[in-house]
C-alpha cells in the first residue's frame, strides 16, 4: 500500500459519494485496491439508505397506549379548566362582596352626616 492509498483510505469515510479530483482522483483510476475500497464505502452507504423504508412493526398496544395518554391528558386539562372557572367565580364573588361592603359604609357615613 502506497502513501497515496493510505491518504485515499483516510478520506473515504468522510465522502458522501462525490468524486475525488486532482492527484487523488488520478491515483484511484489506476489503483485497483483503492477502487475496491471506494466501492465498499459506496455499497455500505447504499445499504444503509435502503434501511429508511424498512420498518419494524410497532408493539400492538402502542397506538392504544398513546390514545389512553391523550384521553387522560384531555380529562386533566378539562378538570383544571373547571377548577379555573371555579377560582374565577370565587374571586368575582369576593370582589362583589368588597364593593357591596364599601357601598354600605359610604351610605352609612352619608346618613350620619345628614343626621
Amino acid at each position, binding site marked *: 500500500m502506497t502513501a497515496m492509498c493510505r491518504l485515499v483510505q483516510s478520506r473515504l*469515510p468522510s465522502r458522501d459519494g462525490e468524486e475525488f479530483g486532482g492527484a487523488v482522483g488520478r491515483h484511484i483510476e489506476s489503483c485497483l485496491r483503492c477502487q475496491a475500497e471506494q466501492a465498499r464505502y459506496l455499497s455500505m452507504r447504499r445499504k444503509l439508505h435502503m434501511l429508511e423504508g424498512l420498518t*419494524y412493526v410497532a408493539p400492538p398496544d402502542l397506538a392504544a397506549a398513546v390514545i389512553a395518554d*391523550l384521553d387522560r391528558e384531555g380529562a386533566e386539562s378539562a378538570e383544571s379548566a373547571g377548577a379555573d372557572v371555579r377560582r374565577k367565580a370565587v374571586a368575582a364573588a369576593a370582589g362583589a362582596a368588597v364593593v357591596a361592603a364599601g357601598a354600605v359604609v359610604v351610605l352609612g357615613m352619608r346618613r350620619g352626616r345628614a343626621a
Partner: protein
Amino acid sequence: MSGREVRRYDEQDVVDAARSGDRGAFSELVRAHQDEVYTLALRLVRDREVAADVSQEAFVRAWRAIPRFRADARFSTWMHRITVNTAFSHQARLRRHRTAPLDGLHIDPEAAGIGPERAGESASVRPKIEAALGELSQSLSSVVVLKDVYDWSHADIAEHLGISVTAAKVRLHRGRKALREILWAEAGDQ
C-alpha cells in the same frame, strides 16, 4: 392501516383536523406512523421496550405541539425530529438512573417483527447491516443512522445531539470506518 394508505386519501386533511384539536384524527396519524416512529426510536436506543416508551412519549409531545405544526411541512419529517429529541432526552434520563451502559444492545430483527413491506427485497442485506450498526457505540451509530439512513444534514444532527458540526462530522467518519471494518472483516475483506 399503513402510512401509504393514509397518504392516499390525503394526509393533509387528517393533519389539519388534528391541528384543530380532533383527537380521532390524531389517533389516525398515530396508527399510520407508529411503525416508522418505532423503527427510528429502535435504531437510536436499541432496546425494544425503551423504543416503545420513546415512541409513546414522542406521540404525546406531538399532540401537545401540533397546533404549532406548520401546514407546509411533512408530518413524518416533523414526527422524526420529535422522535429523535425524545430518544435523546430519554437516553439522558436513563443514563442518570442506570449503571449499566446501553452500548452493545443489539436489535433482534426477528424478535422486533420486521414489517411485511419490502421484506423480501433486502432480506439478505438488512440483518447484516442492522447487526453491524448494533456493534457500534451508541454515539457513533446515532450519527450514522441519522446521516446515512435518514439523510439528515450535519447541522441538524449537531443541533439535535447538542454537539458541534465538526464533532458530528468526526463521529460520522469514525462510525463509517468502524462499520466498514465490521462488514468486510466477516467476509475476509473481499
